[in-house]
């Protein structure tokens, strides 16, 4: 022996991150996880952004329409119809709880029906009803609607009163269905992510089995080995998450621009707020957390079966 060797008894401290990283080859650990996470995160972000946009559309429409009523006056003779419109405006203005009454200009009404009837409408052939919009304080209830209908019907029997929100009830129903669909998609994609990470982790465990056994026999704990997989999966998932988020944001922005280009109040009402963008940005973090927790759980369950 050339000189005394410095040997020391082994204690029980935890392995450093760098040492963990070196213990198992990272390329063999990550496998397809970055790609899987990128695709899943992209789809999840699009689903979440779509769900939030639909929620915003519904909210904007509901805010605009809540408390609004429209009175239609169907009368073939224009002079009588206009007189009824003025009378309806006066009756509505006199009712308690009515904050605003506007007789819709005939040009605006004509513009509304133009897509169906054309621009050159002959009053004699197709009488276009006159319309009066009114806004009530607070929500419209069936009872309030009944009071208004009775007040108008006594003097203008042909007046037809509708709550504006009732026109869009089927649309709100459809939007709610789409929001549930978006939520279901996010949950399914989450499950698919868990399944993909579970399979990838099991494959990585299989291909590193010899090393894991050696580490075990040298006194490595299940937690130490699980941390290696967690770390590797988290890094791979972060890589995939960033790529997926970038791709999804590009898609969302492009689709958002197309909708904004429609110029429709309802479509532009779906624009995402900064809080919505924060929620969207949290999706990859959720994906990373899900993948990391899945990898940890998978490794610990598998190691329990080893001595």
């Amino acid at each position: 022996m050339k000189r005394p060797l410095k040997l020391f008894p082994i204690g029980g401290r935890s392995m450093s991150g760098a040492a963990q990283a070196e213990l198992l080859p990272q390329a063999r650990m990550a496998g397809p996880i970055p790609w899987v996470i990128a695709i899943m995160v992209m789809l999840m972000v699009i689903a979440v952004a779509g769900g939030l946009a639909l929620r915003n559309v519904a909210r904007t429409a509901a805010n605009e329409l809540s408390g609004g009523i429209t009175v239609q006056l169907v009368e073939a003779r224009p002079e009588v119809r206009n007189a009824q419109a003025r009378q309806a405006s006066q009756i509505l203005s006199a009712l308690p709880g009515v904050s605003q009454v506007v007789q819709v200009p005939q040009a605006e009404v004509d513009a509304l029906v133009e897509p169906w009837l054309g621009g050159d409408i002959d009053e004699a052939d197709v009488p276009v009803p006159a319309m009066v919009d009114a806004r009530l304080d607070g929500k419209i209830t069936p009872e309030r609607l009944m009071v208004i209908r009775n007040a108008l019907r006594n003097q203008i029997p042909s007046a037809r009163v509708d709550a504006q929100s009732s026109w869009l009830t089927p649309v709100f129903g459809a939007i709610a269905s789409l929001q549930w669909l978006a939520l279901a998609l996010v949950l399914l994609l989450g499950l698919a992510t868990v399944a993909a990470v579970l399979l990838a982790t099991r494959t990585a465990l299989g291909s590193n089995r010899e090393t894991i056994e050696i580490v075990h026999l040298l006194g490595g704990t299940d937690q130490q080995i699980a941390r290696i997989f967690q770390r590797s999966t988290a890094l791979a998932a972060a890589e995939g998450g960033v790529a997926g988020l970038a791709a999804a944001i590009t898609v969302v922005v492009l689709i958002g621009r197309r909708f904004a280009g429609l110029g429709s109040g309802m479509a532009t009402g779906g624009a995402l707020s900064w809080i919505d963008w924060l929620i969207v940005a949290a999706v990859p973090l959720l994906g990373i957390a899900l993948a990391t927790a899945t990898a940890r759980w998978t490794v610990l369950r598998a190691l329990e079966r080893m001595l």
Partner: protein
Amino acid sequence: MNTPGSGEIVQFDNVGLRYGTEREVLSDVSFTLYPGSFYFLTGASGAGKTSLLKLLYLSQRPSRGGIRIFGTDAITMPREKLPALRRRLGVVFQEFRLVSHLSAFDNVALPLRVAGFAESEIAKPVADMLEWVGLADRMSARPATLSGGEQQRVAIARAVIGRPQLLVADEPTGNVDPDMAVKLLRLFEALNRLGTTVVVATHDVHLLKKVPDSLIMRLDKGRLSDPTGALKYPPRRSGSPT
């Protein structure tokens, strides 16, 4: 004389081991290993030496019987306590079992890293150990690029770097030249003098004579015999209770 339960490192009590539904590869094995002793485990190929060592280094549970290691019942012990026990062991595997993607340095450093030593604490002892086993110029080499003898020396360096309380070596000199074999035995003896109990499995009878104070356990078809009386009349050493 040592009595069971008073300072023994290992105690086997009527241990039997079978793989699956095959016949027992070890039958009624009972012995006690005491601190600071040097044991050779001999026997023909297939006698059960490797199986017995696997039980010793806690890689296998017996089919029957009792095993106590460092005073702990290894059969009923919960899994979570195994790592702490294994860190008190050094193992030289017959097939080396080096980690293929790690360098010689990293393989030797592995037990220390697993135990949580800082890199600054690891570098020098690992380098010294590799120099001592004649691999100073091969520290960065991967196992695949090392010869059988070099791999064996890396495996031995890895087993002893943490100065284990019990060193278990399965044919540790099988792939090295006679000079290196003697040198490695001297390393085991040095560790033994520091208090490490050493168990070396070998079928090389010449090796037995190289360590005069050693005790011999002989396995024959899975049963243990005791040519030097080591098991019936355990050694009296300064490190062991009397």
